């Protein structure tokens, strides 16, 4: 890969797992991220400040605390975990899905912040104009608001994706470090640094992490520029 020393199959597995975890984390959290941004910008209800704080907690709390909270809530005997396992058969504990959940929660504040800025920048008079042209509120949202905040949504998604790839503390606390299941790129690098002779593997994977992060940033720049050209007044 990129002319480097060939990667060990376990390392490739870790990279693929990380990409899968990050992708699912973003896909599942995106609708909630858009909703949270809309509610925080436009909603008027008691407890809005509290909601804002709770959503931002993962950004400031030690990741271990977030991971432990997830373990308490979504573990096999956790309130939500037991419910989801019994009702839908969805299990998070010690599965890659748990890693995706941890990544989603950790990346959520960043995602919401990016989308929120875009929602705040929307000229609401355009939405009024759409209303006078016969568009019901849901159509106004789909045909005016959503396209206008698209750059923010993309930026938020890519931020969350990059954050997911780097997610370590909450993941290892919540779903441990099981090769092939929850051992993501950062966990693998960490494991390499803990064993004698692991330096080469740690370095190889670190370079891979840098490359993926750089590609994600480039992609976000490219997308943002394209969308901006389409959207700018």
């Amino acid at each position, binding site marked *: 890969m990129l002319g480097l020393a060939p990667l060990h199959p376990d390392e490739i597995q870790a990279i693929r797992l990380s990409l899968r975890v990050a992708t699912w984390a973003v896909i599942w959290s995106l609708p909630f991220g858009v909703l949270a941004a809309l509610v925080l910008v436009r909603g008027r209800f008691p407890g809005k400040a509290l909601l804002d704080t709770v959503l931002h907690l993962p950004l400031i709390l030690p990741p271990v605390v977030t991971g432990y909270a997830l373990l308490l809530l979504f573990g096999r005997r956790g309130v939500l975990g037991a419910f989801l396992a019994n009702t839908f058969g969805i299990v998070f504990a010690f599965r890659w899905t748990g890693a995706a959940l941890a990544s989603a929660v950790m990346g959520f504040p960043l995602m919401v912040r990016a989308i929120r800025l875009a929602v705040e920048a929307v*000229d609401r*008079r*355009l939405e*009024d*104009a*759409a*209303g*006078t*042209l*016969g*568009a*019901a*509120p849901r*159509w*106004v949202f789909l*045909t*005016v608001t959503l*396209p*206008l905040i698209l750059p923010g949504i993309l930026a938020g998604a890519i931020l969350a994706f990059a954050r997911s790839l780097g997610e370590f503390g909450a993941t290892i606390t919540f779903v441990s470090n099981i090769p092939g299941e929850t051992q993501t790129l950062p966990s693998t690098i960490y494991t390499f640094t803990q064993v004698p002779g692991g330096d080469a593997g740690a370095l190889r994977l670190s370079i891979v992490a840098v490359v993926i992060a750089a590609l994600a940033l480039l992609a976000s720049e490219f997308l943002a520029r394209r969308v901006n050209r*389409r*959207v*700018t*007044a």
Partner: protein
Amino acid sequence: MLEVDVSHRLGAFELDARFTSDGRVTALFGQSGAGKTSLVNCLAGLIRPDRGRIAVDEQVLFDDRAGISVPSYRRRIGYVFQEGRLFPHLTVRQNLLYGRWFAPQVDRRAGIEPVVDLLGIRPLLDRRPSRLSGGEKQRVALGRALLADPRLLLMDEPLASLDDARKEEIFPYVERLRDETQIPIVYVSHSVPEVARLANTLVVLADGRVRASGPVGAVMSRLDLVGLIGLEETGAVLDTTVAGIDEASGLTRLRSAAGDLYVPRLDLPLSSALRVRIRARDVMIATKAPSDLSALNVLEAWVAEVGGDGVAVEIRLDCRGESLVARLTRHSVERLDLHPGRRVYAVVKAVAIDGNAPRSGGRQGEGPRETSLADAEEARP
């Protein structure tokens, strides 16, 4: 038929407006801050009034006592905003067709092709709004509102954000819209020339209240509104038709209910309708039929009303049923013993044509939107 009776409080400002209109074009006239935009927002459903009733053609859109408040997207009221408000993420064509997606199939009267031609926007169709000039944006905004097949079209100072040259570029399109579609229009403006050129019914707003409403000629010549309409602009509005051209003198004869008016040659076909304004400052009064006078237009009239208590006095004249307004000094009024019922001669020094008139042959008026045609030999003071 438009019936409006609304009250609404916005902070310290209180809107309390009531009027009815069955004109094709209703002008809402008033200075900025008079409540014009709030009132049209009530009509469009963007503001929900505290109290009142709004009905268009017998259909009630808002009635607080009956608990009716039709949401804006069901009102089918087109709105042309001051700043255009085109959707930046759509092309001009997509902007134009936006309302079409939501208009009921059966109500689609206006086709995109005629509207594109009417507004002269064919070359713009594939552009984004960011690549349009201010005047082009407003034309597209007009088209977009029109293509949603509205039963009423609101225009909130659609020309206000444009410079004078652009205004002159758009205005003919607004006039064509008025003449070629059957949609009633509510036109918000603080410009007397615009109102005089477009409107049938005039509603004068001040401090959130309707101070006068009625046919544009009658309201414009009301002496008690001089302060609101403006000293410079107070005057009469006359509907005329082109009755003939005198080849020898090069003058065009306009026939109006008040009498014939001669203006420098206009290149308009016979019988064309033309609305003209005669400003109070351009009318002198003589008590005997004047002879040896350079002015061409002398109309027989009767003093109907003497108003004002300053040094300058406005006089409303009845000219075969039409109103003319003259501004004189109090001294002159007393010297000539002008009082209601007295027969006089109105000497019209200048006829302002705010509209379609070609500029050739006329002197440029000081208002950039108007071609003000002084009588041929008459120099304006």
